């Protein structure tokens, strides 16, 4: 089930009513309802893969219990590795099997050895990378004795499968989300209203910004040989907003939905395109994944404590693994490596923590210096997105080569249809409005959270109505959430 569907529009109120009016007296029943609802939500897409979630839940629950009873360090380690191997085994098989197989075949063929092996037609279970990392965080924290293992199987199942964030995050830490299933939830009006606001803004980002940008990004990337350099730049910018609107929109809907049920999820995006350098960008983009890698990979590798070479090695490892997490394609690895290259100079010159505050805080406009820094960071990010979006490395390089031509000075044009031209202009106008609103809301949790400070109910409701109208009128043709494939 996807958030921007009629199915979800019917599903959500039903679960909401059952949760607050039917099973509200029992925490256990509320948690059980969350599990059932989550399994229905996921099974709507493909019920067969519910077995994977259930198996992963059983394994990590059992490992957690076993770890609590086990003092022997070697046995504890074995238990931890059991969980890691089972979880990463599923992930590796479903997501990376064909990639490794194809690359092995290519590598052997390079040395003149022909190997006969067939790729498998494997369906990638939606959200596997997200819930795998979430359950791993539980086992690792229990192993490190940072978290008490739970004996409440229902609460643990609800934590693993919690439907708002099951398929595309935010990747929650057990330490943060699991305890929320132990406590009685009470309905908080302000929290629920802000949750609704966040859902509304998430839908706008997804259905208006991302889906419209996707149409043009797809046209341009899929036919990149036919367009001028300037059009290709526009295509990359469209993709930058597509992926941001798509993924942060999903996160907003997930967080907002959770708040309706009395849960708090971590912020996953913090206005990343207003970053003044790449280090700041990575503190603001897909925060739940970046911090996961920081805590469970970068720091265990030594982080930035070692010498320069160790810092360089660790930086490359974390960015490349992060790229590879996104998908089994060399394009993601190059995208990760490119970001490592962007990041390294800041790290090595100890400038990676320069911009920790909110840009132009308390001011309407940024300074010229801040503006130029934002523009440069955005340009670097857009350049890297070309690798992320391209079909393969050759396509990415061809795309970049075509940009670097005299046609970069031509007026962008990707369609002769006056309807497409009109609609693309509308999209650019909407992007402008979107950037302005996000700029105004950059001090808050989400783009329109600042509306809660507006005292006039009439004004707030008018703005909500305009957003709903905009979603209805300007929504692009429905595209699947990009991060479902990860």
């Amino acid at each position, binding site marked *: 089930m996807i958030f921007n569907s*009629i199915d979800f529009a019917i599903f959500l109120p039903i679960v909401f009513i059952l949760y*607050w009016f039917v099973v509200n007296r029992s925490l256990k029943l509320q948690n059980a309802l969350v599990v059932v609802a989550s399994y229905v939500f996921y099974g709507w897409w493909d019920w067969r893969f519910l077995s994977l979630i259930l198996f992963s839940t059983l394994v990590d629950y059992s490992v957690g219990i076993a770890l609590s009873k086990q003092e022997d360090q070697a046995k504890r380690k074995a238990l931890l590795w059991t969980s890691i191997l089972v979880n990463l085994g599923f992930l590796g098989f479903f997501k990376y099997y064909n990639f490794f197989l194809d690359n092995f075949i290519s590598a052997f063929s390079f040395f003149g050895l022909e190997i006969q092996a067939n790729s498998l037609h494997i369906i990638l279970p939606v959200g596997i990378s997200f819930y795998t990392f979430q359950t791993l965080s539980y086992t690792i924290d229990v192993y490190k004795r940072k978290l008490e293992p739970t004996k409440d199987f229902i609460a643990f199942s609800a934590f693993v499968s919690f439907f708002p964030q099951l398929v595309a995050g935010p990747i929650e830490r057990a330490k943060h989300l699991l305890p929320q299933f132990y406590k009685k939830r009470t*309905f908080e*009006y302000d929290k*629920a*209203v802000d949750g*609704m606001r966040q859902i509304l803004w998430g839908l706008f980002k997804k259905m208006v910004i991302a889906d419209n940008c996707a149409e043009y990004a797809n046209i341009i990337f899929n036919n990149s040989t036919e367009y001028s350099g300037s059009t290709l730049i526009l295509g990359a910018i469209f993709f930058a907003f597509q992926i941001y609107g798509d993924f942060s929109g999903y996160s907003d809907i997930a967080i907002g939905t959770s708040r309706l049920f009395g849960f708090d999820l971590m912020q996953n995006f913090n206005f990343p395109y207003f970053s003044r350098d790449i280090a700041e960008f990575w503190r603001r983009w897909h925060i739940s994944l970046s911090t996961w890698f920081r805590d469970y990979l970068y720091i265990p590798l030594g982080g930035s404590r070692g010498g320069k070479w160790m810092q360089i090695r660790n930086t490359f490892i974390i960015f490349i693994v992060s790229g590879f997490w996104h998908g089994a394609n060399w394009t993601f690895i190059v995208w990760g490596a490119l970001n490592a290259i962007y990041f390294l100079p800041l790290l090595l010159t100890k400038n990676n923590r320069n911009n920790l505050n909110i840009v132009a805080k308390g001011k309407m406009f940024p300074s010229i210096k801040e503006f130029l820094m934002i523009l440069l960071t955005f340009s670097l990010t857009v350049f890297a997105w070309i690798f992320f979006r391209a079909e393969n490395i050759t396509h990415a390089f061809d795309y970049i080569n075509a940009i670097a031509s005299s046609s970069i000075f031509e007026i962008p044009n990707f369609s002769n249809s006056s*309807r497409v031209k*009109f*609609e693309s202009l*509308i999209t650019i106008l909407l992007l402008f409005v979107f950037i302005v609103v996000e700029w105004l809301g950059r001090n808050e949790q989400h783009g329109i959270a600042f509306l809660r400070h507006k005292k006039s109910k009439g004004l707030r*409701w008018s703005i*909500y*109505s305009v957003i*709903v*109208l905009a979603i*209805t*009128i*300007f*929504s*692009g*043709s429905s595209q699947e959430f990009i991060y479902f494939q990860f």
Partner: protein
Amino acid sequence: MKKFLINILFFGFILMVVFFVTDKVITHGLRQSNMVIYEKLTKLSNGVINADLIINGNSKSYVQLSPKIVDSVLDLNSYNLGLDGNDFVIQNMQYNLYEKTNRPPKIIIQTVDFGTLRKAEGELYNYIRFGPYLNNSEVRKTTKQYEGFSLIDYNLPLFKYSGQPLEVLDGLASSFNIHIAPSSLEKGYIQKNLAWDGSFDKFIAENKNGINSTIDKSTCTIFESYIKKCKQNNIKLFLVYTPVYYEFIPYDLDRQLLFDYLNDVSKKYDVPFLDYSEDELTFKKHYFFNSQHLNREGSELFTKKLSLDIKVLLKNEF
């Protein structure tokens, strides 16, 4: 909780009112629109066509038959109702709408091709043009057979215009009598002043073994009812197969089936079937912009030829 639910319900109610009013304004505007895909339905529903001769069909009519030339040869007032990309079920629906608000014609030129009698299903080309008319029971019933409008579009206000900003803008503007797109049709006909576009090469590459077309029984029933209705109302009907570029013919694998059916219908109902698929025009590439359609120059020549042929037939009849 109570406050939350009341607010949600109240906000939902306000939204529905806003949606309802906006829908009404846009729909009213689009029914006055001059934009290419709306103009025919605008004129038709406002009852301002009242032609002596109607040209009906798909793009074979729309881009190939000029009413001005027909008028000059036959000395009549004609109008082209051709709807590009649509089969006979939709053409028939539009004709029924025409009949309700306009004087019936004396003559109908009905073009036919391999897509005319296909089953009413799949994507409805330019479905949005029927959006302002969804309150009409026949339009609802007919369009529901195709992919285009969803259940919500039929039942909730404004949703049918979702993702159609141009329609919304034009609808709002037209409702205040401001037309953002000037009329570009010539009595329903659109000139295609184009050179050969090469799409036929792509078609051959993708369909090396040719294409099959279907003749659907239920569409044939509607087609024959339409013929019967014309006969009953003393409307002279001419079935016309317009020229296609000769190299296409071997790829139309079910061509003979269609021709057999059309010849049978022609005999059964005593309506002329004029076949131009082997006309000399079909060998002249420069008169076409793709394998299926004549360009402006070719269309003008063909319209003249067809009009003269019809003139002879009409003369012989009386």
